[in-house]
């Protein structure tokens, strides 16, 4: 921790070159792939599939290279950094970097996309058109990757929004019966949040201190790493309003109660791959925004907002669980379970402890793997049964035993069974609320002055939420997988077991759920230094009296 948190640090320096960082390639390789696909005629479907898969595998390859080159002893530092002018007139810069907070989420993204393409290989949803479908997936990948590596608010905002259009079309064109309604609802909700978010970013920009540019002139900044100090002079009252703008923007994406109503519709109507990407990555953009932007830049305002976030998170947990119990559609049930799971992540973030942030990042990845996998299973079940109505499906274990057991495995992981990844997201999240805002790091006592009684109450309620989770998930499994097949489907030849492409797409998910369940340290060791540093910096800002 650098104790010299003074305005002398507000220096902008050009670092690296555009093509000098692997992160640039991560962002632009999918775009290049999409451009190549645009030139290939619509008829040659195999060519499209091959190009799309190759592009996503190259991107994953760069990701693996990053994983190998990443300096794990310095995972709190930003690595592979680049910092170049982008829009000079507003001093928005092309700043990229990777640290222990973004690395797990970035890799999750890179890992999910090729598996989604493999899964779609032989079953594109109606109205087919693999060209458009796969181009949209690749553009989506650019947006997601960019959001996780951008360190400039405007750059982040642009990538955050790039995600919108492809998802809108994926839901609206390839989705279920109510697809058009779901697609526009998703779009309008997110756009409303974005509008408030961009006003909040601009207010931050104009109200924070100026920074020194490489040529010696003074300008305002959008740099996420400089803003915590630059923004410390904003008055607390104003900072609380600005945080509110970001809260709505990110909160809609998470989604937090009461902004969650777009999610069940979007998830239920989206094509399988769309649901998987939505659950695995898109929701994380919201929580990542809190961890990366909202909390570090305005820590004092965040401490004022923490009780609100905590209460809404726990309402989300309980409300999501109760909604799950009332659902008659399997996919919709899983969608509501996302609301509950993201509630745990938000509770961990609201606790403002290193322990909590660790749990939050782990929880995001675990939820991405598990719920993503559950949506795959839902998609495959829908293909076989042509319905996901719980009361029409029974005895999946009899008719398609492997599919049934994979479903059961994911259900166990989702309810937080120890030994599987879900546990390490959920259990520490609940524990973190016990000492919310209080911790000792490197012998220094840190306190953000949160209301301990409130958070301990929230902790108890959240713990009850896990019981509900076990309830609705096991009940779902019991009703659909156990028993004997219903008369309707008993002799249906379409109900086959897991196909080879499904195995190919799913095995990595299943393996990782077990690996991270057994050896959570693999991820915690990367995350911990970064979040600890982040907490220390937030604390330093509050000590300075900054907002």
């Amino acid at each position, binding site marked *: 921790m650098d104790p010299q948190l003074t305005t002398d640090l507000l220096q902008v320096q050009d670092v690296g070159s555009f093509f000098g960082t692997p992160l640039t390639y991560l962002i632009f390789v999918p775009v290049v792939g999409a451009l190549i696909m645009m030139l290939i005629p*619509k008829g040659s479907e195999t060519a499209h599939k091959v190009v799309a898969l190759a592009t996503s595998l190259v991107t994953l390859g760069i990701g693996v290279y990053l994983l190998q080159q990443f300096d794990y002893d310095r995972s709190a530092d930003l690595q592979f950094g680049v910092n170049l002018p982008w829009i000079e*007139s507003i001093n928005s810069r092309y700043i990229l970097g990777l640290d222990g907070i973004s690395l797990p989420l970035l890799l999750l993204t890179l890992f999910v996309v090729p598996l989604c393409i493999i899964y779609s290989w032989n079953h594109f949803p109606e109205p087919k058109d693999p060209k458009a479908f796969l181009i949209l997936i690749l553009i989506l990948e650019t947006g997601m990757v960019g959001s996780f590596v951008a360190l400039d608010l405007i750059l982040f*905002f642009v990538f955050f929004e790039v995600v919108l259009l492809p998802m809108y*079309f994926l839901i609206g*064109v390839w989705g279920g019966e109510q697809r058009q309604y779901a697609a526009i609802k998703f779009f309008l909700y997110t756009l409303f949040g974005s*509008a408030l978010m961009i*006003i909040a970013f*601009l207010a931050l920009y104009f109200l924070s201190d100026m920074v020194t540019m490489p040529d010696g002139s003074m300008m305002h900044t959008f740099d996420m790493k400089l803003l915590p100090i630059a923004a410390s002079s904003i008055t607390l009252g104003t900072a609380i309003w600005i945080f509110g703008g970001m809260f709505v923007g990110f909160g809609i994406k998470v989604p937090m109660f009461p902004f969650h109503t777009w999610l069940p519709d979007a998830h239920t109507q989206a094509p399988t791959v769309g649901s998987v990407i939505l659950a695995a990555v898109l929701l994380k953009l919201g929580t990542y925004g809190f961890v990366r932007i909202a909390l570090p830049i305005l820590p004092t305002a965040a401490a004022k907002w923490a009780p609100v976030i905590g209460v809404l998170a726990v309402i989300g947990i309980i409300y999501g669980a109760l909604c799950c119990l009332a659902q008659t559609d399997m996919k919709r049930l899983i969608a509501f379970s996302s609301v509950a799971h993201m509630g745990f992540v938000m509770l961990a973030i609201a606790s403002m402890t290193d322990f909590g942030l660790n749990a939050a990042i782990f929880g995001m990845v675990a939820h991405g793997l598990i719920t993503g996998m559950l949506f795959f299973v839902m998609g495959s079940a829908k293909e076989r049964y042509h319905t996901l109505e719980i009361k029409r499906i029974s005895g999946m274990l009899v008719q398609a035993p492997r599919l049934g057991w994979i479903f059961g495995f994911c259900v166990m992981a989702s309810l937080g069974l120890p030994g599987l990844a879900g546990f390490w997201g959920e259990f520490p999240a609940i524990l973190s609320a016990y000492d919310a805002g209080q911790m000792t790091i490197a012998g220094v006592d840190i306190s953000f002055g949160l209301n301990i009684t409130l958070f301990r109450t929230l902790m108890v309620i959240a713990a009850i939420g896990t019981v509900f989770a076990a309830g609705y998930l096991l009940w779902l499994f019991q009703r659909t997988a156990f028993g004997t097949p219903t008369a309707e489907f008993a002799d249906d030849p379409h109900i086959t077991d897991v196909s080879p492409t499904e195995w190919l797409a799913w095995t990595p998910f299943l393996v990782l759920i077990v690996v991270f369940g057994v050896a959570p340290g693999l991820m915690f060791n990367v995350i911990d230094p970064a979040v600890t540093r982040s907490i220390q910096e937030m604390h330093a800002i509050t000590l300075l009296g900054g907002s």
Partner: protein
Amino acid sequence: MIASLLAFTAPSIDFHAFAPEIVVVGVLVLVLIVDLVTDEGSAWAPSIASLGLLAALIPIITLATTEHEVSMFGGAYMVDNFSLVLKALFVVTTYLVVLLSMNYIGEGDYWEGEYYQLLIAALLGMMIMASARDLITMFIALELLSIPAYMLAAWKKSALKGNEAGIKYYLMGVFASAVMLYGMSMIYGITGSTLLTEIAEAVGRPETSTPIITLSIVFVLVGFAFKVSAVPFHSWAPDTYEGAPTPVTTFLAVASKTAGFVALMTLVFVGFRTRADVFQPMMWALAVVTMFVGNLIALRQTNVVRMLAYSGVAQAGYMLAPFAVYGYDSVTSMALSSIVAYLLVYMVMNVGAFAVVIALARKTGSAELSAFSGMREFAPGLTFAMTIFLFSLAGIPPLGGWFAKFAIFQVLVSSESPWGYSLAVIVGVNSVIALFYYARVAKAMWMEPVLDGDLTPVKVPVSQVTVLIVTAVATVAIGVYPSMVTRFSSSTCLIADPVECPADTAAP
């Protein structure tokens, strides 16, 4: 008598600075002569016009690179970065409109030679508008651009809607001109000058009577509020846009509107800059009403050209917003450059959107929303391009429109005033409303079945393909790398004032 005539000394004219206008006049004359003397002259008109317009860009570029600022006719005519950027914008827009017109006018059994003559005459008026710094020059520029536009609007003379388009535009336009002239005469009465810089000084004096100043400023601005189709002076736009040939609609929606904004900018940022107390509340109200009315009525349109007309009204509302905060110390030239940036982006995406409408109409003969149903299946390229333009108009990154809207937000928030913040939130709310009708067209194209099951592809002529590619690529490129636009927009400055125009932003 003769002696007095001989004593007349011609004003010194910098022919380099005047070269763009001279080239355009040359092209106009050439088209006219070729049309007169040859039998198949009309066939040559579009080629001569398009090549001539490209030639007109050359002196604009040489002027911009030599960076000399020229003031002519006693300050009534200025050639500076601002005027050059906008002249280039006008010339490029007209060039794209000529490309769009080639087949449309040729195949439509309309008079071809005269069409291009009038188009170029209107362009000349716009170019003069960009340099005019004097009320009389401005008025001449306005009439020079308006009168050809009235005729062009009524080009489909055998169609009832074509006549309606022309007559409505003409009557409303003449009325607005009359009101504006009345305002100008009052301003001359108060200040004794038609030069904007002198007017600024005179109206700023404390002893001038505020009610009369208010009345005259409002009257003058109303004349141009009509041109930019600000509510409540917008009622001509949808009918005229629908009835006019679509390339002319493109011209009116983009070039003519830009010319109106150019006039508003020179008037407000030069002539009336000392009276922020007068124009600020007016512009605030005008911006808010224009945004809401434009967007809410656009929601109910079933014809895409009419929808684009109302969307253009709403877009004008966004562009009016920076005027409402000009006058706060922290805003300065940022207000001007944000409007210029918006105009540049607006041109690219709007011309593109109209180009798609024109191309599609070759197959369906209609611009109704239903004609767009299922376009994805029979015209994937056009669908892709239209998607880019629509969501750029909606302001979704990474398409150009996001930066235009962002620049507006930036100016409004930078005022750090309740007026600015409230306007920023209103622009935000309107962006969400607007998304709904843009997305509805996207929905029809992507998600709905083809209406009559007719899957024959659309044949798009090369000239229109060129326009589509240029505008689509520019829309994406500007969005990804906005410095392409800010390079030009931030070099524009109307007041030679070191605070307003810091030296480092003065050069492109």
